């Protein structure tokens, strides 16, 4: 059983596992483990001998030491993956006994489970499920004498089919728990908006076509494009070039939502966010109700309880109004202007003398962008250390980050608290699938300024490139910029694009129904099952009872037919199975006599039955028929135990 066949399959499976755990590995550890696998592959073709247990242990100890030394680089979870893979690979290299192969298969299952922590997309989920099938095959080889008998499998299929309802039933109904304890999480480069914005950072982000998150709205209608500002981060510290998140941001006290504003209509929606390896999440305007699985932050933001390493889904309700200020300190913090960008300071002073009212001032800044020769471009010229001065009075072309940065600074210089907000704007609405797709290329930056305890949203990009806000990035860019964004050959094949889009939709359903199934949904399912029972339970009971009654009647009718209508031959064969094996051409009476010979204990029984049978058949005695039927029925268990005489072939 532990043949080369097993070895070959196991090496192939381990290669697949290694590739699946790629995100957890560094290049050198990947190559090292790959080396072990190729050694196992060579073994499976009998090119190199098996390792002795001692050698395997020494190699394992050395490699494990290497891993321990680089545990800082890996992080605890990736270290665990390394150790798991190492143990499986070396076990295969020194595989001798049946018991060791069992351990190997066991560890494979666990590694396959772990690989789901890194991949949740539908395609990869199917790949991983096929590795489960491969491991099941290995498992089968261990305990069965021959390879899977595909031809004979049809006999087992009805039993195998039971796996599916049991599986889904368990998934839907088995109790779910909230996390029992904290486990180390995967460390990977973050994606999405970083914790600071400098000229050029958002331009890089929009190069990516990857999905950032998807939203479905409870009422099925998204707010208009111009209101879809998904806030992720607020940047409140400015050093002349770079805006960054304030260091003590999360320590600020939360503000309770005041009841006076609860009259504003709120919208509820569900967001499925992709893995970003950071905590910040997305929300519209002012969130009022927040899922228990996520946390509220100051400034109306939300965040996950731990870095988002896999797709998560959460529900929110928001009111489409500006966020309220939390405290005095916040407004002071957002007035800091620093000692830089002197030209823009003078400009702000001049402008604020003409427009002392904050709203008018903000409008004046936007007018300035509109009236002067400002350009909106994805490839702006590089800016110096005094980035705002450089931008406003020199280059005059930039992306949303440039405009937001300049506007926020001008507002501050005019004495109005202001900050840059980072997030996403817009998104593509798919009415048939009923969800909004927000991609990384929708990344955006805009401005909020504080007037009387409330932050007002101001998007300077809307002034310079209104198409950007109204119909997305593609419309607002020049042809050259657009070309640099998407790979041209993909865009030029409409069929391929269509397929890609359909896969994207399928992936959405996968996220909603498989990945997003959580405790609340399960509770809702139980609730609906209970409701269904309450509403239709009684009816259901009647239906079941009716069906049972029908079945009983059908059974009785069948018995009646058997008793009165069935021919003699069929009747005997129906009750005495041994007669089915009699040689062809042998009459029933003779077969009964033969049976009586080979079953001496039942001989008298059989002989009298034979007599009744002959009376009925040859003398048409109806009395004998009734008696025969009665005898056949009452002794039906006896007839099944008959020993077959020679010549009867089962």
């Amino acid at each position, binding site marked *: 059983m532990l043949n080369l066949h097993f070895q070959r399959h196991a090496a192939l499976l381990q290669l697949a596992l290694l590739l699946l755990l790629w995100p957890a590995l560094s290049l050198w550890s990947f190559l090292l483990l790959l080396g072990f696998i190729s050694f196992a592959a060579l073994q499976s073709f009998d090119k190199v001998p098996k390792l002795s247990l001692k050698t395997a242990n020494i190699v394992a100890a050395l490699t494990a030491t290497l891993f321990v030394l680089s545990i800082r680089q890996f992080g605890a979870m990736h270290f665990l993956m390394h150790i798991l893979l190492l143990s499986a690979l070396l076990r295969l290299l020194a595989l001798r006994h049946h018991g060791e192969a069992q351990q190997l298969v066991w560890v494979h299952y666990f590694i396959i489970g772990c690989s789901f922590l890194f991949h*949740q997309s539908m395609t990869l989920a199917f790949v991983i499920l096929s590795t489960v099938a491969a491991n099941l095959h290995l498992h089968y080889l261990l305990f069965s004498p021959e390879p899977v008998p595909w031809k004979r499998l049809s006999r087992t299929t009805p039993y195998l089919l039971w*796996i599916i309802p049991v599986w889904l039933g368990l998934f839907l109904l088995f109790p779910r728990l909230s996390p029992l304890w904290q486990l180390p999480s995967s460390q990977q480069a973050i994606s999405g908006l970083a914790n600071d914005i400098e000229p050029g950072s958002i331009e890089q982000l929009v190069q990516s076509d990857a999905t950032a998150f998807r939203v479905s709205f409870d009422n099925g209608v998204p707010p208009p494009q111009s209101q879809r500002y998904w806030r992720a981060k607020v940047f409140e510290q400015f050093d002349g070039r770079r805006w960054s998140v304030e260091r003590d941001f999360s320590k600020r006290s939360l503000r309770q939502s005041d009841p006076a504003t609860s009259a504003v209509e709120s919208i509820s929606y569900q967001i499925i966010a992709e893995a970003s390896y950071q905590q910040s999440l997305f929300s519209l305007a002012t969130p009022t109700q927040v899922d228990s699985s996520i946390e509220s932050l100051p400034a109306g933001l939300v965040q996950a309880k731990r870095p988002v*390493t*896999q797709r998560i889904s959460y529900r929110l309700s928001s009111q489409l109004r500006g966020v309220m200020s939390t405290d005095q300190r916040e407004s002071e913090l957002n007035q800091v202007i620093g000692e830089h960008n002197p030209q823009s300071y003078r400009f702000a002073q001049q402008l604020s003398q003409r427009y002392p009212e904050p709203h008018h001032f903000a409008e004046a800044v936007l007018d300035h962008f509109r009236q002067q020769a400002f350009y909106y471009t994805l490839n702006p010229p590089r800016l110096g250390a005094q980035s705002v001065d450089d931008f406003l009075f020199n280059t005059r072309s930039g992306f949303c980050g440039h405009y937001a940065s300049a506007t926020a600074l001008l507002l501050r210089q005019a004495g109005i608290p202001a900050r840059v907000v980072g997030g996403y704007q817009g998104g593509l609405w798919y009415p048939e699938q009923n969800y909004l797709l927000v991609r990384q290329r929708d990344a955006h930056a805009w401005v909020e300024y504080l007037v009387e305890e409330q932050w007002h949203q101001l998007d300077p990009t809307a002034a310079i490139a209104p198409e950007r806000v109204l119909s997305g990035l593609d419309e607002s860019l020049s042809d050259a910029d657009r070309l640099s964004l998407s790979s041209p050959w993909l865009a030029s094949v409409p069929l391929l694009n269509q397929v890609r889009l359909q896969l994207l939709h399928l992936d959405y359903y996968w996220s909603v129904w498989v990945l997003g199934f959580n405790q609340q949904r399960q509770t809702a399912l139980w609730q609906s099952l209970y409701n269904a029972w309450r509403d239709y339970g009684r009816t259901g009971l009647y239906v079941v009872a009716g069906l049972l009654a029908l079945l009983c009647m059908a059974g009785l009718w069948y018995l009646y037919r058997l008793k009165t209508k069935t021919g003699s031959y069929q009747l005997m064969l129906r009750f005495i199975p041994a007669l089915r094996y009699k040689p062809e051409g042998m009459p029933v009476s003779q077969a009964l006599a033969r049976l009586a010979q080979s079953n001496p204990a039942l001989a008298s029984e059989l002989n009298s039955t034979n007599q009744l049978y002959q009376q009925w058949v040859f003398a048409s005695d109806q009395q004998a028929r009734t008696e025969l039927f009665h005898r056949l029925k009452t002794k039906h268990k006896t007839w099944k135990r008959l020993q077959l005489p020679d010549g009867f072939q089962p």
Partner: protein
Amino acid sequence: MSALNWLKTQMKTRFWQRLDRWLLKRHPKPECYQFNHSTLLVFPSRYGFWFLLLLLLLYLLGTNYQNNLVLLLAYLLLSIFLVTIWLAWKNLSGLSVQLTSKQSTFCGTPLQLQLKCSSSHPVVALDFICEQQKVTFNGTSEKCQLTLPVVRRGCFPLPRIQLISYFPFGLIRCWSYLPSQGEYWVFPTPLEPRQQANQIEAEQDGQQQPQLPDQLKLYQSGDSVRHLYWKRLARQPHAPVVRAAEQQITPDPRWVVIPELKGPALEQALSEACHQMLHLEQAGISYGLKTPGSQIALGSGALHLQQCLQRLALC
């Protein structure tokens, strides 16, 4: 400690007796054992419990990372485990086993237990285990042979044969027993009479072996001290000699006689008697058996031979 051991053995025998009774009640026909829901036992194997631990670990992993796919995997494996219970039972259910062996052998020749298995569907990876012996059976209908090593003559109860299968994934152990019923006989090894052997030996190396007259033979433990040839003992203390028994002086070839001996001497005599009887039976001469305390009258035929051999086995 010994009391504890005694209790243990007592409980063990009690247990097996009860099991046998339980099994016999469920097998209506003792000559052919049919295995179905009332006679097959099903329980997770040791690996099955390891597998359940794996499921628990996967469940915890899935719960702690709130990862539905890990949970899905755990449930998939659990449902496979559940279906395996069914498959394991289905594999053996409907199997019938017939014990067909003549249930007697000569000492030194292993006993062959013939098992005739038949089933309506192919049975996979079924092991018959009997006293550390293992035979694997695959397919629909086949004869299996278990060899039972025998060391002592006598009449022994047939050992309990265990049927066990871990098919298909080794997670579930499905097993049952063929109840221990009936007995098997181990007859003495037939050996050519000692004298002839001695003579041949003596011819081969005459120097070392003392030359003996016809009436004398070398002592072996168990020979009666009364027959010792004392004169010879003084001369050759390392090779004592006894007078051969009287019946060998006037042997009636039709009567096989077992003298009153003990130990290896008795074994020797029994083996020779066995050989003699087989010889007589083959030649078609009727013969009788005299043992200390009993005798079987002259006769011949297979039944007679068996009767005589059984008497020898019990001597």
